[in-house]
């Protein structure tokens, strides 16, 4: 028996390979990013690509499916919003090779801009959805999802979440499946794939029929499972919610749903006949509860006690269901009294000097999704909106259209290189087309940073590290019609401020690009600074704390009354940790007293 411990995402990747998947496409997003990384690294027989966004990834995967191959598209929950357009019509076209759309939710928004319950897509889009709760199920459900997809001619949604994707549990592997279907496109299938009204209408009926068949299938589906123990209380649940509830109330009976859409009506009826009272435990929305109530059943407890916000834990399930009988554990120290350890831009990060410059210019900054979102936190406070990928460009344009000349010199949009390619181009094209006057700064650090260094069309490498074409951002800007395109070295604060100010003041669209400012963690492009290390000259430091305003992890405050060599009283001095300093010189430029100087490492 081959049992090994695997992260949920690693189990998904292995299962894709073992299910005979030929195509995997994705755009990175926590907590889904490791799946494509692992497929690319471990399973060479699977074609793998980072697509520029989730919509393209799903389109690529569906093309492979139409050609007869088993295909997988992976994304985080907000990515499925981007991919929703093809998804909703792929529900009509159906598939040839199995097509699985993996969507990773993030209850509690550990690293996301919102908290969506992707189960709603299944009902909305009329497609089946499977929901694993631990790595073994990640492995099993991915495999069975492809069988369901082909058997019922439908895309299958596979829903995971942070605590499933990023948890390591034991997995027993099974034999590899090799699909026998030859690859090829068939023109005769156009009535299935061309979604014009005459074809849509019969496919609409097909979907209704398919959903009925799937609901019947759900009644016999091996991963919809009843566990009858104490019959006083029966719990209907799924995924990781089952794990939390079973942990606290092992004695109760369970109907654990592996398929959360469509629901197994006969099995639910059977469960209600076997237990006295039914509790529904589910994270986020009352998805199962709404449906089961609509079937006419009476629910003992559901969202009346189980929270609809944030993630669940065993503790929350226990507290919610025990009510007054719940005994909280002893509070010895209040965690809120302790200093937090929030994430920060790295020492030497190119975003830090840019945000310092934007703050000094007093700009309102329309932000985006990425490491640079960290620029919103104090003491930088330099980013003022974050909505979704690509949003900042359109928003800055909209704001400037309203503010007109009044807004000149005060507004800009910032977004990363990967984000710009994901969904910034159309926004920038629109600025030019509609005679906008906004400024767009592309923080090109040569990689997708926040999600852990994924390649994209601007890095010059594929997911497997092969050399490929590298997008030229300046040429894109020109092609879109931007006349004023400038380059900045963000590490030169004075020059950056001058250029950004000039561009923000212009009554025309501007585009500003980073030059030579790769991510500090990107080894292959590591920027060499003139001097590798800076230190504070204690004779000159006046303890003004200006350098602390840039929030560099290498700089700290050392309290202590005293005075500088030239007699200025001070309450302490700044200190640069030589283990963390990389020599970016940003603090040296911020210091007004020239007390930060290069030293020998």
């Amino acid at each position, binding site marked *: 028996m081959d049992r090994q411990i695997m992260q949920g995402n690693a189990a998904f990747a292995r299962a894709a390979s073992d299910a005979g998947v030929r195509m995997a496409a994705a755009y990175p997003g926590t907590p889904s990013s490791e799946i494509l990384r692992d497929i690319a690294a471990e399973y060479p027989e699977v074609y793998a690509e980072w697509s520029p966004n989730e919509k393209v990834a799903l389109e690529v995967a569906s093309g492979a499916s139409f050609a007869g191959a088993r295909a997988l598209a992976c994304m985080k929950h907000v990515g499925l919003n981007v991919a929703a357009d093809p998804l909703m019509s792929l529900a009509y076209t159906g598939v040839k090779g199995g097509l699985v759309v993996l969507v990773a939710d993030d209850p509690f928004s550990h690293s996301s801009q919102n908290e969506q319950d992707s189960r709603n897509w299944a009902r909305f889009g009329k497609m089946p959805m499977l929901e694993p709760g631990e790595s073994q199920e990640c492995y099993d459900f991915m495999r069975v999802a492809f069988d369901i997809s082909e058997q019922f001619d439908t895309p299958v949604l596979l829903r995971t979440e942070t605590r499933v994707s990023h948890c390591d549990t034991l997995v027993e592997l099974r034999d590899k499946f090799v699909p026998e279907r030859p690859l090829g496109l068939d023109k005769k299938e156009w009535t299935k794939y061309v979604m014009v009204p005459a074809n849509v209408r019969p496919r609409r009926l097909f979907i209704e029929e398919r959903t009925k068949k799937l609901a019947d299938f759900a009644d016999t589906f091996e991963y919809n499972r009843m566990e009858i123990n104490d019959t006083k209380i029966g719990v209907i649940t799924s995924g990781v919610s089952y794990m939390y509830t079973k942990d606290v109330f092992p004695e109760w009976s369970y109907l654990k749903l592996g398929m959360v859409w469509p629901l197994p009506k006969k099995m639910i009826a059977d469960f209600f006949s076997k237990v006295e009272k039914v509790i529904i435990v589910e994270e986020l929305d009352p998805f199962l509860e709404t449906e089961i109530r609509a079937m006419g059943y009476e629910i003992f407890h559901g969202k009346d006690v189980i929270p609809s916000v944030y993630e669940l834990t065993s503790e929350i399930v226990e507290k919610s269901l025990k009510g007054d009988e719940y005994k909280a*554990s002893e509070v010895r120290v209040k965690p809120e009294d302790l200093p937090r350890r929030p994430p920060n831009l790295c020492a030497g990060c190119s975003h830090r000097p840019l945000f310092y410059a934007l703050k000094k210019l007093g700009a309102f900054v329309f932000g985006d999704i990425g490491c640079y979102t960290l620029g919103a936190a104090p003491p930088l406070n330099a980013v003022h909106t974050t909505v979704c990928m690509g949003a900042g460009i359109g928003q800055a344009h909209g704001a400037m259209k309203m503010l007109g000349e009044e807004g000149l010199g005060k507004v800009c949009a910032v977004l990363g290189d990967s984000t710009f390619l994901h969904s910034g181009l159309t926004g920038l094209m629109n600025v030019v087309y509609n005679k906008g006057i906004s400024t767009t700064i592309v923080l090109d650090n040569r990689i997708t940073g926040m999600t852990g260094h994924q390649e994209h069309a601007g890095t010059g490498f594929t997911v497997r590290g092969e050399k490929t074409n590298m997008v030229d951002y300046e040429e894109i800007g020109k092609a879109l019609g931007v006349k004023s395109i400038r380059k900045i070295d963000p590490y030169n604060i004075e020059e950056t401020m001058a250029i950004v100010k000039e561009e923000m003041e212009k009554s025309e669209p501007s585009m500003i690009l980073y030059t030579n400012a790769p991510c500090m963690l990107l080894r292959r492009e590591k920027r060499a600074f003139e001097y590798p290390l800076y230190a504070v000259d204690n004779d000159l430091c006046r303890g003004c704390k200006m350098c602390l305003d840039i929030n560099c992890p290498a700089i700290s405050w050392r309290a202590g009354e005293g005075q500088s060599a030239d007699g200025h009283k001070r309450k302490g001095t700044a200190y640069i940790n030589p283990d963390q300093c990389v020599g970016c010189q940003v603090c040296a430029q911020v210091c007004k007293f020239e007390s930060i100087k290069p030293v020998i490492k």
Partner: protein
Amino acid sequence: MKENKQITNIFLSGVGGQGAILASNILAEVFIGAGYDVKKAEVHGMAQRGGDVTTHFRYGERVYSPLIKQGSVDFLLAFELLEAIRYINWVKPDGKILINNQKIFPPAVNLGTAQYPDDIVGTFKSYFKDNVYVVDGGEIAKKVGNIQAANVVLVGAFSNFLPEISDEQFVKAIKSLLAPKLHDLNEKAFYEGKKAI
């Protein structure tokens, strides 16, 4: 599978880059090898950016929840003092605590806007008496030959809490996870850690 239906909860906490992940991987190898079901949930989304890192580690006959309930930690293994006290409420009254004697200041302390808590070990001892152990993992690792092995020193010290697992099982697990050239150093680090408490 083990007869014991009890689930044991180990909580690991530290700061990104301290090697807590390797430590939890060693524990996983050890307990899977001993026939247990294991669940390990890491929270490290932004660890590269200096955030805190925690691992919920659970083993037993069949583990359901990937997350430990507050107040039910059997063993707290903390790689840093502030990251130890942050989770003091998670430990059950008779739980055992192993703390690496290292302070890494968070930004607010660096900026002088917050205080690093005083006498963290004393606070632990006031609740957990003799069940609190402090090890200078970095110092021991330096003596062994490389400060990077501090995490394995801590695993060595921690192994005293788990008498049912032999030293050989630990050393085997450590070797299975590290490149051969690191085997001798880390084996030494394990045994020095073992002696440290």
